């Protein structure tokens, strides 16, 4: 009786099996990475109707965040400024500049500018800016160094796992209140000790932070 299969079919079969195993491992890992990065458009600059440069306004001119994002300290949402705010300066400065055409038009026609959302938290997540600002959580922790961004991109994956990293251990991120709006702030070497001190000082409720009800309602 002859063999049905050629001798090299043995090797082939082995390769098939081991190949399958390796492939699965690669697939799982790559998917995991994908879910945390590209899929979330992390680091991808978002084009806007108005070529507004945070690098220029915040970075070079050093305008405080709160000049435009007025409600960040008192409300859940750090509001996107109304056209009025832009016009406050640009009715004098660089009037008629082509980059400002849309702003001017919005002002004249009284139609809002439609900005493209960069940070989009799911609707069932109730993020509150004021709570974070007042407890010494710096803007740049989530938004990165806005003062260096021409076009803004999402600086962090914004996944629940990412949120939890800090909610489980705020001491690793918390900074002095006066540094909250400092985009250039660097964590000191003794962040661990400093963090512990600040957590106590700001009365950050470590027990409450990781609770579901803290963010979901």
């Amino acid at each position, binding site marked *: 009786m002859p063999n049905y299969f050629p001798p090299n079919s043995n090797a082939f079969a082995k390769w098939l099996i081991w190949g399958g195993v390796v492939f699965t491992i690669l697939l799982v890992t790559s998917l995991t990475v994908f879910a945390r990065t590209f899929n979330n458009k992390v680091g991808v600059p978002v084009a806007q109707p108005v070529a507004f440069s945070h690098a220029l306004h915040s970075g070079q001119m050093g305008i405080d965040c709160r000049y435009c994002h007025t409600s960040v300290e008192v409300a859940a949402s750090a509001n996107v400024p109304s056209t009025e705010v832009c016009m406050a300066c640009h009715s004098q400065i660089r009037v008629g500049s082509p980059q400002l055409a849309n702003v001017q038009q919005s002002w004249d026609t009284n139609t809002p500018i439609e900005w493209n*959302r960069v940070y989009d938290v*799911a609707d069932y997540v109730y993020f509150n800016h004021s709570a974070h600002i007042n407890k010494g959580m710096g803007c740049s922790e989530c938004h990165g160094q806005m003062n260096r961004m021409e076009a803004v991109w999402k600086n962090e994956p914004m996944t629940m796992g990412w949120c939890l990293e800090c909610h489980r251990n705020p001491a690793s991120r918390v900074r002095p209140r006066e540094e909250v709006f400092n985009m250039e702030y660097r964590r000191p070497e003794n962040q661990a000790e400093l963090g512990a001190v600040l957590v106590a000082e700001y009365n950050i409720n470590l027990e409450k932070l990781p609770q579901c009800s803290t963010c979901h309602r």
Partner: protein
Amino acid sequence: MIKEAENKINNSTLDIAAVREKLSKSQGKAYWLGLEELSNTSEFQEFLNEEFPRQSVAYENSVDRRDFLKLLGASLALAGLTSCVRPVRPSEKIVPYVKAPEEMVPGRPLFFASAINQGGYAMGVIAESHQGRPTRVEGNPDHPASLGAMDVTTSASVLGLYDPDRSQTIVGGADFAAFATALQGAAGGSGFAILTETVTSPTLARQLAQVFEAYPQTRWYQYDQLHNDNTLEGSRLAFGEPVTTRYDFNQADVIISLGADFLGEGPARIRYTKDFSRRRKVLSAENTMSRLYVMESTPTITGAMADHRVTIRPSQIVAVAGYLAGELGVAGAEGALPENVNAELVEALLADLQAANGRSIVIPGDGEAPYVHALAHAMNSALGSVGTTVFYHENVEAQPVNHTEQIRALTAAISAGEVTSLLVLGANPLYTAPIDLNFAEAYSGITTFHVGQYFDETAARSTWHVPQTHYLETWSDARAFDGTVTIMQPLISPFYNGKSDHEILAALLGDAEATSFQIVQDTYTANVQGDFDDFWRQSVFAGVIAGTQAPLTEVTLASLPETPTLSSGEYEIQFKLDPSILDGRYANNGWLQEVPKPLTKIVWDNVAFIAPATAETLGVSNHDIVTLTVGENSVNAPVWIMPGQAANTVTVHLGFGRGENAGHTANGVGFNANVIRTSDTPWQTVGGVTRAAGRHKIVTTQIHWRYDSPSGENDTWADYKDSTTQRRHIIRHGTLAELQAEPEYPKFVHPVAEEASDLYPDFAYTSYKWGMVVDMTVCTGCNACVVACQSENNIPVVGKKQVAVGREMHWIRIDTYYGGDLDNPEFYMQPVACMHCEKAPCEPVCPVGATVHDNEGLNVMVYNRCVGTRYCSNNCPYKVRRYNFLQYAELTSTATELSLMQNPDVTVRSRGVMEKCSYCTQRIQQGYIRAENQGRKIADGEVVTACQSACPAEAIIFGDMNTEGSAISSHKGSVLNYALLGELNTVPRSTYLARLRNPNPGLVTGTEVQS
């Protein structure tokens, strides 16, 4: 949600056309089609233990087209959980303001004081606005009629604002200018009349005065089904003048209600509930409570609260009142006690009254004959309660008149040709007017200008129709029951370019451009001393104008007239306003249609209440149809056997049977009782009742009401089944005397010895420890909490068919049990929401940890983690979890302007997700963040749940059990405090105060309370 909200409000162009187009396709099969598969042949004797199987229907689509549109018309939702339906969210736009409004912080709600005008009388509210969208109203604590509480209609009014069924276009002419000219033309000519509802608004009164100046021959008529003519006539009989009676239940020790439902009806119902409940609040044996005797023919929530309830037929009230008055020494009053009234009880009652020396109230029902009112006045003065518990002041209506007479006169005038053109402000007389007047025919004969929120029966027959504004859309003013004036401010510009009554009258006066704001201000500029702006700011801000309460007046009793002889027959028919939709003005409000009616738990229907004995003689049972005949008019009504209903007395509720005129929610719901309602006997009459063919499936949210077995034994299956509720110790009730007998450890609160034992160590709740107590002694079961919760938590309406299969979504329900004698039972009301058990059985069984405990003891439901195994619901002993069997809430993709009503702080749940009471966790979180930002702890009473804020009886207490001396801790400490199903060791955070009654000691034999 908030950004969603911003987007919506800022680029929301209300696509009316689209909505209309949607609504036009909405003719569907009747609701209960297929429900009759259920063979429900049980006889009336077992009706209480009969459990109608909640049959599910083999329907083609989840929510069929009609239902969908009903829901659309009733309650729509932003999709909070879109990402659960669509894993990848599309990129969104941020749309900021061009010019940011003053004092508005995006994401922070604003609150405005205003008032809802109901039957002419104001109920003060605080309206919440998110980025300019009114999302919710609550009671105004400074307002005398509300004191911060609410009822169902108040909470639900915000839904009425967004109702896409509201009339949206001017009918009869090109535009408002054309309307104005036509109106002026009509007024200029002879035979012009104005028909309004009850007018207490100073501004409206002022404008009307101006109209009569400008057009002297103009006649003014008022018609409003909510208007209590008999009270008015009663006061005329007693004092010769239409004074208003005001009661102080907080001061009363003994209260006799002669058919009066003062807790559930009338412009002061919320205030009276507050006062009444405060007087009956008992935490320990030291406290005392008033004693309430109720004589009524059909059970009301007032009757359910009674310590002694007497069931008598409407026609017997006069005799009983006469007897009482006679005994109390009222000159000229006489009456024989009917044999079906327990004489012993009446004697005890009289003794009680005498003993109370003035701290007593005899209050007649609005529906009772004027003579009864006169007797009541006489009795109150004889008892010397005037000035202590009973007060009189001038009637606050612009022109107190008998509305039934008014509509009669108007009809006569029209047929006599004296009135040829008519302006109707708000009213819907073609539906509500007594049938015998044949008003519709008269109305169609003349030129008519109708102003209303809906294109209703009247609008359909009018020459002109102009959309009317909702109270949240316009400036106006109105008086409370005690005369206090509220300036009503708008929260949003009119949705459907509606016009306010003020603007209409201004147009009539030739100024079509005048704004309500200007008109209302003009009323006060004249007679305000000091800085007007200060006055205005204060008054508008506070929601009341200080010192406008009507002053008390001295009254002198006239001698009693002859005792009227009320016609009585085999069957007496009684008309009542529906507890939810009143006279039908809220018929198109899905929340009010779906909220289970007090005592019966019926939804989406009105029925004919008949007594068990009557049902036996008629040989009918629930869902059967009877024909009610009055004179030559008759109507078919489904039967509901009501324990405690007077024999041979049928009670029907108004406001239903709107045909196709009321909007997609109300159309085809219930039957129209107005067609047998005549002008000379508007509230109670004599008629015929015969069985008719067919059945109509009435849907209730509860199918077993029995508290104990009538026979007292349980050796047969039926009796055993009846009495199981009692043996489960679900309702724990006793008398004040029993409490005083053993003040430390009352047996009735702890029928079985409970010792807490657990294998597991307890979790420590160190920061906050939220808890709730429900006081069953004062809870009237008025449903205010149910609708308030629905509005706060974006709870969808599911429609009759879904309720029929047991899928209602209310997070809090009011369980109702009947105990004792079927003909005159005791009623037990028990609000049940999630108990937030510390040892919650629902949590360990969830395979994904979608329901867990947080560090403050809340049993949190994480919608976005829920996969919908429903195991938690199975394992919940209280069955308080609600499941989205279908896509009840609307998805963003299909959202209409109704979505704007949603509370942005609460996730909207998608299909396949479990939900339940969250203790209003969003309010707790907001309070927490507010407090933390200010570097302090949450103060006691700072976080208030929606149900708590609504409750007029203050029966719901919520707070942090770790805070010393907080209201919640004192209630938890009460000897009456018990945990529902505590023996399961679920350690619920919500507990109950046992139901206390205060029966007359003289009438208590053993534990048996005579009635």
